[in-house]
């Protein structure tokens, strides 16, 4: 793949400083038309900052951006004129509007005169040319996340003649099938001679579609690899996390111990669970998690994952059925009884469900059942903090200082604190919903290692995720939420992600 042409967009020694912090340091990259260039790196490696400079949202402290070999002072307006489009992670769409109405708001001045019919025609042309199917008259609230993303993409493409499209974590919210369709669309864009810049955490996707991969670490380009040189996943993970070559990547090794004495730790039988509208979202749902077992729960989001975990944890009453923990019936017991019996819960949205924002991190450990020593009428907070700080889980996960208030923490740090709290109690039953959401690759691997450790120590773990890689890598057995029920357990060694995907979709059709 010799590149005869000069790049469409090139950065030369691009540097940006926020006060003393150097977010990007002498970044030189080239983006060619008809090629997919992925940028990978940990959280805070400077990927998003770099992309925002390309789009003109941030202005570099030094260095140049060249478009078609001309130096450009980038602003969002100029970016739009030059055909640089950015597809944001949080789709900027209004759910109460149709796709067409959302697109109309974004049109540049030059297209203001167009009537609805003409705009619809243009949408249709783009959607046929690049095989991005959307229905302009559908309301956004009726769409799944994949459809919303397609609207966002077409919207960005209608804002100018598309030359370079920047995608910021595009597949993080998509299901397996949607993500697959998205990757196919990227290839279609590439074949139509569009330059694609892709930021993502998901290495498998990067490896599948990229022509070029650049690794960013601490704001610097660590290396740029071309496809013809060959991509190596292990090496890439090492580069992202800053492990030097030759050094053994220790985090990666998950040693699963053979558990000898297996007994059912969590038994749910024939449950019927209602959602907040009073409809039965799960019926005849049964599930057993044994000690020393990780059961992965796959399913399209909103199929009852949240209701299932909340019911097991006692935040929600079940309409029918029984729940046993370690052979004791807990169906009618309170949440606090379940906590005391050794159950921990990591919500899909810890910020909403797991933390009191005005309180400090260490307070949360006490709330969840870590009992500190008394000191006078108060607790001995100092000692508690020292004890906690010496805990491996707290250190490994990089939990911030324990006397910081939850409200001052980022989403990733809240996730760390909640995980450490759950792990520290060595729970009998751990309910974990999307435990690595919002974490970078390094921390995500630590989390996975901790889950395996807990499993080896005999915890029964229920792991809810939409990430097929995570489900397959972590689970001893897999169940699928579909058709308003829970399937039997599948052995991850005997079933493929595609078959699981089919089961998930099968449930999606049946309302």
């Amino acid at each position: 793949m010799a590149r005869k042409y000069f790049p469409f967009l090139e950065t030369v020694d691009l540097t940006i400083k926020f006060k003393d912090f150097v977010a990007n340091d002498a970044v030189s990259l080239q983006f060619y038309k008809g090629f997919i260039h992925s940028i990978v790196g940990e959280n805070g490696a400077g990927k998003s900052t770099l992309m925002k400079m390309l789009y003109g949202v941030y202005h570099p402290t030094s260095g140049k951006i060249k478009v078609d070999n001309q130096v450009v002072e980038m602003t969002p307006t100029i970016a739009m004129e030059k055909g640089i489009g950015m597809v944001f992670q949080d789709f900027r769409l209004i759910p109460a509007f149709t796709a067409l109405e959302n697109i109309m708001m974004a049109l540049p001045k030059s297209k203001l005169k167009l009537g609805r019919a003409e705009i619809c025609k243009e949408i249709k042309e783009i959607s046929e040319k690049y095989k991005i199917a959307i229905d302009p008259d559908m309301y956004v609230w009726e769409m799944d996340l994949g459809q919303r993303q397609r609207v966002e993409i077409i919207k960005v493409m209608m804002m100018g003649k598309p030359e370079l499209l920047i995608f910021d974590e595009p597949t993080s919210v998509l299901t397996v099938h949607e993500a697959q369709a998205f990757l196919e669309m990227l290839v279609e864009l590439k074949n139509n001679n569009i330059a694609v810049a892709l930021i993502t955490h998901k290495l498998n996707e990067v490896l599948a579609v990229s022509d070029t991969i650049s690794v960013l670490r601490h704001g610097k380009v660590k290396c740029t690899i071309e496809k013809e040189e060959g991509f190596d996943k292990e090496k890439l993970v090492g580069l992202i996390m800053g492990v030097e070559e030759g050094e053994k990547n220790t985090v990666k090794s998950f040693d699963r111990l053979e558990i000898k004495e297996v007994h059912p730790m969590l038994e749910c039988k024939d449950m019927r669970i209602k959602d907040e509208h009073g409809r039965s979202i799960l019926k005849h749902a049964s599930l057993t998690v044994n000690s020393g077992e990780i059961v992965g729960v796959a399913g399209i989001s909103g199929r009852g994952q949240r209701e299932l975990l909340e019911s097991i944890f006692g935040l929600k009453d079940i309409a029918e059925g029984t729940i046993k923990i370690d052979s004791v019936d807990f169906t009618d017991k309170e949440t606090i009884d379940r906590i005391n019996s050794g159950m921990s819960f990591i919500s899909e949205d810890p910020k909403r469900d797991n933390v009191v924002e005005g309180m400090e991190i260490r307070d949360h450990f006490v709330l969840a059942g870590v009992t500190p020593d008394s000191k006078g009428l108060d607790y001995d907070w100092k000692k508690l903090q020292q004890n906690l700080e010496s805990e491996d889980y707290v250190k490994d996960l990089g939990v911030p200082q324990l006397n910081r208030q939850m409200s001052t923490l980022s989403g990733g740090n809240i996730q760390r604190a909640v995980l450490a709290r759950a792990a520290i109690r060595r729970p009998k039953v751990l309910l974990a919903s999307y435990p690595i959401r919002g974490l970078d690759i390094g921390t995500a691997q630590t989390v996975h290692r901790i889950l395996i450790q807990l499993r080896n120590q005999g915890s029964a773990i229920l792991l809810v995720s939409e990430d097929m890689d995570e489900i397959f890598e972590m689970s001893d057995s897999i169940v699928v939420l579909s058709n308003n029920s829970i399937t039997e357990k599948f052995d991850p060694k005997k079933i493929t992600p595609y078959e699981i995907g089919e089961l998930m979709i099968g449930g999606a059709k049946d309302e």
Partner: protein
Amino acid sequence: MISLITNFLTNAIQSGTSVLYGIYGETITERSGIVNLGTEGSMILGAIAAYIVAADSGSMGLAIICAMLAGGALALIHAYLCINRKANQLASGLTLMFLGLGIAAFYGREYVSVSITGLNKIAIPLLSKIPVIGEAFFNQDILTYLSFVLCPVLWWFLYKTRKGLFLRAAGEDKEVVYAYGKNPQSLRYLATVLGGMISAIGGAQLSIAYTKTWSEGMTNGRGIIAVSLVVLAKYNPSKAMIGAYVYGGAQALNVILQSQGVEISPFLLMMLPYVITLVALFVSSVRKGTNAPNELKNIIGG
């Protein structure tokens, strides 16, 4: 019997038109993400301003324009307090309602016994001769006809123009509007003041077309009813007439029952419009889903 029905319809429309303007005005305002409980205040200021100008100058056109200016001015205060000063919208609206009622009562003292010619009914040829409904719909004053025309016009503005699209977007998610380089706050100013002006026409209809008299507090809660009927109309001008004429119909029923000598306490009859309005709200809220602009949820919930 036929004449009774015609009489009922005529009364329902005459009485409902002022509320209809209130619903139009408040719909525009709420679509942009602002709740204006001061609609009642704008209406009563419109009523007194129109009446004073009509009595002193005799020009009905000027009367209507002055009504709009007075109602718009009150709404402007609301816009400033809520948008620039980030005041509590419910508190500001309620207070402005009472301020409007007070100002109107103050300037209206000398006009209580003044009579005006007002806006007369104009029969539309042919259409007004249709049996039963012709008289009710097509022998009315000019402001009533204007309220018929405004229905498609406002709907078209909100749903078919770019300005309307952005105005609704400001009510759904102001961050998105910012992202497209537009200022949601100026759209809200526009919608609040325009809403006040339209509501004020309703007040003018009440004083110079329907009753042709001025009495203190004559809007009698119509502005407040209009605010609640916006929900029944699903925040859509094209459905505003349903709520307005349910209210107007209840008022008309009240009048007719009294004139027929039905033995019910007049106090009970006076409650009828509100009870019917409440029932209508109950029925509409039972249906699933909400059409409320998203930004309003921060103010009033639900």
